[in-house]
């Protein structure tokens, strides 16, 4: 395969030039002998994008999503590698379940699926999962995502143990006492609507805890889906001192504020919740100055019948894989001009690859031929009816966006292209 006349952006090698890219035998090559030519003029040729925060729901919740359907959604969103969270049923807290996920992915997924393992048994936050064994079967990180270990001592030992095994720790930052039964950001809208509030301090307290433990254990903790201004401030200060801490941003936390909840539409209910404009502004600044280095979707599929209930009883979360890249390009590159497209690609490739020690995220000669073709100027409308995902729980239906993936290549083969 030859990808012709595209703007090849490969941040890992500091490369940004209009050039042909050859793929042979599933690898980036000097030349290709087969006849397939892809015209990429006017397009960006990026290393295959990585989304390191995705819920694929299998095993246990295949009515929401399967590994196959989630992978198709990823491909349609421009992602060649996705990292799936362990809160399945059974939880991915043991080598057998990880092996099952990997087998299932090998037989049914059109993109690379990399599992994470749980930190604690059954994600109950009480005793450590067999982290070493999980590492042996190839998890790329450990996390109790969806839950948060409240016992600081247990978390400290988990981080110390993960350091020995060489796995980064990803954390969903939520202090259960402060968050209480909150379902939306505590502030004006929770006051007006009488919905239980979940204050930003409930996230910030755990981000601060994680900074202290990352220092104590000299090991990396990654704070997932950062939603609060105070979290950004804490991470910025810690990183300036060289602490091994990082933060991740989801598109909904910069696209929306808690004002969106006013009609009790459960497609605006996620955890952490949509916060205030002040928080959105702080996250945008955090992206601009490098404090927040990872972009991810927190793709969280739920069936319509599960979401179509009373607001406080609905499950948290929205699907994101198929709107994520469009939202980030539209908001970060075009609308707010916080970063350029090169940095955006870096945040979806080099940054997660470095954090998770992945052999991915570059177009170096000899690298695995995963690539995403992006049209950063293409105007399109997000439509849930066109989703590849099994679920439709998105607040972005009908949004007009600028920029999206037009072709996704995994292992040298096109797995999806824009019709």
């Amino acid at each position, binding site marked *: 395969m030859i990808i012709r006349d595209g703007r090849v952006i490969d941040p890992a090698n500091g490369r940004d030039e209009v050039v042909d890219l050859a793929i042979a035998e599933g690898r980036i090559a000097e030349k290709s002998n087969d006849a397939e030519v892809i015209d990429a003029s006017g397009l960006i040729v990026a290393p295959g994008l990585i989304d390191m925060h995705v819920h694929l729901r299998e095993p246990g919740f295949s009515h929401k999503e399967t590994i196959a359907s989630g992978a198709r959604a990823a491909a349609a969103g421009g992602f060649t590698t996705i990292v799936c969270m362990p809160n399945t049923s059974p939880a991915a807290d043991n080598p057998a379940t990880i092996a099952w996920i990997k087998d299932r992915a090998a037989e049914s997924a059109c993109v690379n699926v990399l599992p994470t393992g749980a930190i604690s048994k059954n994600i109950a936050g009480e005793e450590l999962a067999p982290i070493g064994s999980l590492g042996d079967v190839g998890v790329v990180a450990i996390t109790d995502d969806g839950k948060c270990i409240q016992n600081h001592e247990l978390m400290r030992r988990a981080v110390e143990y993960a350091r020995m095994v060489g796995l980064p720790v990803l954390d969903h930052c939520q202090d259960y006492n402060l968050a209480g039964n909150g379902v939306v950001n505590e502030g004006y809208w929770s006051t*007006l609507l*009488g919905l239980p509030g979940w204050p930003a301090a409930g996230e910030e307290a755990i981000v601060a805890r994680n900074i202290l433990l990352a220092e104590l254990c000299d090991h990396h903790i990654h704070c997932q889906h950062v939603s609060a201004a105070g979290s950004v401030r804490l991470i910025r200060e810690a990183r300036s001192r060289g602490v091994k801490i990082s933060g991740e941003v989801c598109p909904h936390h910069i696209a929306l504020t808690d004002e969106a909840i006013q009609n009790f539409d459960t497609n605006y209910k996620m955890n952490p919740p949509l916060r205030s404009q002040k928080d959105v502004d702080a996250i945008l600044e955090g992206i601009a100055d490098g404090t927040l280095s990872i972009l991810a979707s927190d793709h969280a599929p739920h069936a319509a019948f599960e979401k179509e209930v009373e607001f406080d009883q609905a499950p948290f979360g929205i699907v994101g894989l198929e709107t994520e890249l469009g939202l980030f390009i539209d908001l970060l590159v075009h609308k707010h001009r916080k970063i350029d497209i090169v940095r955006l690609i870096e945040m979806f490739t080099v940054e997660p690859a470095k954090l998770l020690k992945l052999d991915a995220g570059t177009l170096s000669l000899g690298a695995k031929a995963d690539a995403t073709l992006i049209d950063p100027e293409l105007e399109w409308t997000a439509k849930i009816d066109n989703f590849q995902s099994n679920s439709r729980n998105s607040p972005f239906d009908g949004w007009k966006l600028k920029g999206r993936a037009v072709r996704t290549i995994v292992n040298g083969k096109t797995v999806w292209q824009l019709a």
Partner: protein
Amino acid sequence: MNERWTRKDLLGLRELSIDEINFILETADAFKQVGAREIKKVPALRGKTLVNFFVEPSTRTRTSFELAAFRLSADVINITASGSSLTKGETLKDTAKNLEALHADILVLRHSSAGAPQFLAERLKSSVINAGDGAHEHPTQGLLDAYTIREKRGKIDNLHVVIIGDILFSRVARSNIFCLTKLGARVTLVGPSTLVPRDFEKLGVTVSHKIDNVLPDADVVNLLRIQHERQRKEYFPGTGEYTRLFGLTKARAKMLKPDCLVMHPGPINRGVEIDSEVADGSRSVILDQVTNGLAVRMAVLYLCGGIAT
């Protein structure tokens, strides 16, 4: 029916215009007169079916709606949470769709989740009347409180209304705030800082934690029950300290202006938020609120029920 009323549902008072609120109150005037007649029944909703759907327990509000519906000649059935399919795992949407399939014209909903009435109203052709949703709104309570103030004081504009108690968890407080500020009253909220957080100031009211500074200037005091059974211990140290700091005791009642109204949506915890002598005293209009609630609910059922057809 009338160009002043076009809504099939009453979900809250925040979204109502001043004219819509006044129109309900004026309609209630007419129904209040009906209640004083020997024959208290009118045929306004004859042939219509009203379902009192109470997913959260209530006696007072349910009875008031039931009586209001009887007086309007509607057929009434009552469904409570324990007797409904919700306890068998059926969703609220399915239960409501089933009621609609039985041609229920008006659904009066009491629910522990904020937004539940709006959720149903968007999905049903029937009228949905909010009889209290979580800590969100209790619009007929807000209306009957406004009606009572207007009846006793002749106006609402420029009056100083003080609402005392557990504001954070109170749907009555929110409906009162939305309604009374629209009608021109000055509203002050009083209670412990944990139950009256500063965020409420953004709703256009004043927050105070010193009841003795506020009472002498009040035209109306509306006391809310301290719902100690629902609250976690961390919100306040106990009812003893609550009474000491915020109770409308006999001694404090002496600070009130002679024509100040004392209101309470009930049920009263005598000796906690209000002393017995004050609840039963000359300023108390607590039982007038109950009577007016009937007229206001008749007005709401009549107006919304007329739109649904």
